[in-house]
């Protein structure tokens, strides 16, 4: 089973019919893909437009309007569509900005993990021998260690700033990228056109950049999508237990974490960001799965 499949589980799409009897537009996944895609676009647009859409400053407190429920419940106040938290901050505005930060952190983490992993994977696959054994040994250690422990240790030592958090997120999936790229490089280097490039005297660097990297784009993009959706969850989990983004800045995870004290009296403070996390996660997972199934034919067969 490929690393990607192992990482993300196995596809939930129906058992595959032969491609011949199933025209592309009739595919069963299409409807899910469309719904998940629309939801994804909507969420990304909401995150990008947060400064425009948010009716309030996410940190602005109004103590007279504390713990108001969303519109439609008793005691709700007009401009606070999704209610307010314990400090009278507008939940809708906080959710929009929290979503924005969550997505940005996951994006930076993915880029960092991709950069580390692809570089190490390329080096391991091209150099082979001891270097390969060493790097893949490290990747194995990384994969065998519960990552939350690593995150706790790093954050305890380096403090919990945004930069540290991005580093932690970047460290979370480098090993998966590295193993994927190494495997691809090892199989690519045996292909005739790579051999041809080598035999006319192309330098290893040129072979790596001009002949191998373009062929790695597909699988790496798929892996990046999966890493992105997983990093959203990792970031929200870390912020939820209090070691991620620090107040007063909020992400969806930290909103759920801090709202826990009001579960009995003001459940919406937790429920609103929690349901938003569910939406984000569902759409990201569905898109990641679909993308893998569509682009990942070569990987799936391994």
């Amino acid at each position, binding site marked *: *089973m490929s690393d990607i499949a*192992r990482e993300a*589980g*196995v*596809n*939930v799409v*129906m*058992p595959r019919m032969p491609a011949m009897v199933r025209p592309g537009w009739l595919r069963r996944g299409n409807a899910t893909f469309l719904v998940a895609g629309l939801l994804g676009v909507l969420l990304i647009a909401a995150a990008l437009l947060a400064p425009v859409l948010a009716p309030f400053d996410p940190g602005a407190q109004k103590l007279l309007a504390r713990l108001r429920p969303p519109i439609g419940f008793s005691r709700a106040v007009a401009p606070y569509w999704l209610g307010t938290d314990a400090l009278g901050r507008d939940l809708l505005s906080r959710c929009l900005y929290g979503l924005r930060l969550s997505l940005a952190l996951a994006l930076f983490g993915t880029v960092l993990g991709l950069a580390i992993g692809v570089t190490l994977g390329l080096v391991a696959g091209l150099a082979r021998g001891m270097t390969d054994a060493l790097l893949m*040994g*490290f990747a*194995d*250690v990384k*994969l*065998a*260690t*519960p*990552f*939350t*422990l*690593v995150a*706790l*240790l*790093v*954050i*305890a*030592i*380096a403090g919990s700033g945004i930069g540290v958090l991005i580093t932690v997120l970047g460290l979370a999936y480098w090993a998966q990228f590295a193993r994927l790229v190494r495997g691809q490089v090892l199989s690519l280097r045996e292909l005739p056109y790579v051999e041809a490039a080598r035999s006319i005297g192309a330098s290893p660097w040129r072979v790596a950049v001009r002949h191998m990297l373009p062929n790695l784009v597909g699988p790496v993009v798929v892996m990046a999508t999966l890493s992105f959706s997983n990093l959203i*969850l990792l970031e*929200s*989990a870390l912020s*939820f*237990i*209090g*070691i991620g983004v620090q107040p007063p800045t909020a992400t969806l*995870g930290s909103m*759920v974490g801090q709202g*826990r004290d009001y*579960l*009995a009296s003001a*459940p919406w403070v*937790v*429920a609103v960001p*929690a349901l938003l*996390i*569910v939406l984000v*996660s*569902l759409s990201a*997972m*569905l898109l990641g799965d679909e993308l893998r199934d569509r682009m990942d034919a070569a990987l799936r067969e391994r």
Partner: protein
Amino acid sequence: MSAFLFRRLLRMAVTLWVIVTAVFMATRFTGNPIDYIMPEGLDADGRRAMIAYWGLDRSGFDQYLLFWRSLFEGEFGLGLVERRPVTAIFAERIGRSLGLLSLTLLATIAIGVPLGVLTAVWRRRQLGTWVLFAAFIGYAVPNFVLAILMLLLFSFTLHWLPSAGATTWLHYVMPTMALSAYFIAALVRYTRNAMLDVLGQDYMRTAHAKGLGPLTVLIRHGLRNALIPVVTVLGLQIATLVSGAVVIETVFAWNGMGDLLVGATLLRDYPVLQFGVLIVACAVIVVNALVDLAYAAIDPRVRLA
């Protein structure tokens, strides 16, 4: 088998060495460790005595050797918050953590494998699709969100289940459900795929043809072969399970090792954190190796690969 045993144990030893060294480097070479392990309000003499006691005035390599010696002597220092040996702090919490982990593992296998087999058998039925859909939801919803939503429903609305602590068996219901949902979902999908591969095999037709009952064919010939890849995947998920338990223990104020480690991080209680990370990471690696060995003992193909 002995060659495989040797290789696997060697890999385990190297991994353990890397982890111990990484923890040592992380705690020694990022700032002055004496600031981490020293109780507050110690005078200059006390500080010097502590530095000498922990060997922090010696060279890096000597400190590294000392670190190893302290590991073998079980000398891990005092927790900064509770002011007692960290070993004692962990000793009274490890039971609750292991209880949650083993119950989760049990629930995962007891629910995930049968559902996976059923969805494979029901692959043309509506019901199978619904089970798969539920599995996808369980897979995509993060464990802490699930835990919070369950708390809202079962504790604060219906008042059926206690919201925090680990005293009665009722306390175990929600944490186990929240933690195992993801793994059940994953196991359903793996088992289903493995079963679908097996169901198309010639030996299944042979088993049917020689007149065995459908259940016997499914379990004895089908499941036994399908479980082989499933066990590997389950072994790989142990690290994820422990990561998830840290979060779930925090949600339910479990008083286990997970929420202890989170608390230690927030309070910068380095002796507790260092010891906890070491023993939990090492335990996971040893368990991983044991799963691999057990697996190789069952399936000879693994040894030759």
